[in-house]
């Protein structure tokens, strides 16, 4: 094990998979000569050349569609959206084409493609550039949706995503790219399975389910709560579709309460889905209503002070945990 950044973990995953499989290529805006808008693809062009590291014009619908078409006939494209906000102009390609053709062709055509890029708020990039898109894509049967929080998960899951025979929505985070964490040594081919939750912190008093950027907010809040005698168990689903609730249900059966913390808006989405499943699967074990701490139900303001309020904060997590724990 060594410590590397989330960005480097993603880059290693792409290097290793492109090395392993000739059919894997990277396509997107500024992925080649510019070295990636967020430097995730740095060095890939030098290694694999313009044939496999392809700069595109600003045409998300076009290059998303090209990727899907190429995947339909056997390639394994990695399509980078400079940010997921720009995926909306390619929404039809992902939903009407990538997610549908397998079933529409009675299973004859597969679309092994990864769409990846930074998701959610960065810092003061305002409403059009701060979308947390998981709710849109998790709604769609025929897609996998992955949102890793740590460098290790980022690498292991991206490798699994590239090898998947299905279209994968891979949600990274601009503010996560610099996060450091332990990752197996280079050359260790660790594949983290799609659709498996991970226990991030053990505790007996309250379960918290979280992923993405708020993962770190929650871990910090959990330490503060521990100092007050409330031990939180933190579970990161890592994959939002298919959703693995087994670990969460087990945990809630132990703690009898749960707070779900996510960046996306409160209306629907994986947060609401988790709450729905937990209330069904752990109903007789609940001692308190399931609560959520979410991004506030507003468009993201530019002003820094307000942006801080919109995103889940430690204070809101702590308040919610105390509320469901009936603690003062």
């Amino acid at each position, binding site marked *: 094990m060594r410590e590397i950044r989330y960005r480097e973990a993603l880059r290693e995953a792409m290097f290793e998979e492109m090395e392993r499989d000739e059919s894997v290529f990277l396509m997107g805006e500024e992925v080649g000569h510019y070295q990636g808008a967020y430097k995730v693809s740095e060095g890939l062009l030098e290694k694999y050349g313009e044939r496999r590291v392809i700069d595109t014009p600003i045409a998300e619908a*076009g290059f998303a569609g*090209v*990727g*899907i*078409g190429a995947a*339909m006939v056997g390639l394994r494209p990695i399509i980078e959206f400079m940010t997921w906000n720009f995926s909306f102009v390619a929404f039809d390609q992902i939903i009407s084409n990538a997610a549908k053709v397998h*079933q529409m062709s*009675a299973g004859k*055509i597969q679309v092994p493609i990864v769409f990846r890029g930074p998701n959610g708020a960065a810092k003061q990039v305002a409403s059009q550039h701060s979308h947390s898109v998981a709710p849109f894509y998790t709604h769609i049967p025929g897609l996998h949706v992955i949102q890793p929080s740590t460098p290790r998960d980022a690498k292991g899951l991206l490798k699994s995503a590239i090898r998947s*025979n299905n279209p994968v929505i891979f949600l990274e985070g601009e503010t996560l790219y610099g996060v450091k964490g332990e990752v197996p040594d280079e050359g260790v081919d660790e594949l983290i399975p799609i659709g498996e939750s991970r226990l991030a912190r053990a505790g007996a008093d309250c379960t918290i389910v979280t992923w993405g950027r708020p993962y770190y907010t929650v871990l910090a809040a959990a330490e503060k709560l521990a100092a007050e005698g409330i031990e939180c168990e933190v579970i990161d689903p890592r994959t939002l579709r298919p959703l693995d609730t087994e670990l969460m249900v087990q945990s809630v059966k132990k703690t009898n309460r749960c707070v779900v913390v996510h960046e996306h808006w409160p209306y629907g989405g994986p947060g609401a889905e988790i709450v729905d499943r937990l209330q069904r699967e752990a109903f007789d074990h609940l001692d308190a209503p399931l609560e959520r701490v979410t991004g506030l139900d507003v468009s993201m303001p530019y002003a820094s002070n307000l942006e801080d309020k919109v995103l889940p904060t430690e204070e809101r997590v702590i308040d919610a945990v105390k509320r469901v724990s009936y603690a003062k």
Partner: protein
Amino acid sequence: MMVIRRFEEEAARNYAKGKIGGFLHLYIGQEAIAVAAAEVLEDRDYIFQTYRDHGIALARGMAANVAMAELFGKDTGCSRGFGGSMHLFDVERGFLGGWAIVGGHLALAAGTAFKSKYAGEDRVTICFFGEGSTNIGGFHEAMSLAGLWKLPVVFVCENNQYAMGTPLERTSPLKDLSIKAKGYGMPGDRFEGHDVAVVQERLAKAVDRARSGGGPTFVEIQTYRFRGHSMSDPAKYRSRTELEQRKQQDPIVVVREKLMGLGIDENSLDDIDIEVDEEIDAAVRFADESAPALEDVMMSTVLAREDGA
């Protein structure tokens, strides 16, 4: 061409009987284009079409009974009842689908062409769409990328004069759509589509260009559909006179006269008609008697298996 014509007529009849549901878009009047394209293409090539896709599927060799069964929503259909009229697929013959979001499949065609280039394969992609597609963004982005990357793809605009019910002069500032090609750095061509021999000759040029590394071509074929946009369209937006005039150029009448001019016996042409009638009747019977679509297939085809099986 007769197979397509008769297939479409029987499809219409069975739609009226309630055996076929949803949307049904007929190819009657445009048959020469599909037949010519199938002649020009190699077996390994890829084909994309819109929802008006029965013609090309049949021309490419899909059995009429398999196509009809799909329209009937049966497990024996080419897409096992998951696609219907608008989403025929025949992957083994390189027919990669009927697609039903206008302009959405052009980029896919650029994608399969991208793969041919990436993998150094000698496969051309041909992509059909209507003139209505030329106004949507998907057209623009796909053409841009195909032109930019010199992809081996032929974009065939079947200009049947009406985007659903709106005539071309009310949807486009251009009468000659083929000049759009210039904007994407590719050659354009434009011709009438009622004579199968002409279509074959002109399409061959574009396909050869793609195959020989000359990049994409945009081809506008002027054609006419004798039926409405779909079965629910009474086609009141065009005059009886216009339709009758166009029927003078019915591709089937044209080819029949041409063949007779070449000395082919009319009786032998009639024999073909009878043979086709029997084939299509059998297709309807096959579709009608087939088992309905299956629930377990539905559940198992949402996602592809990860073990590759």
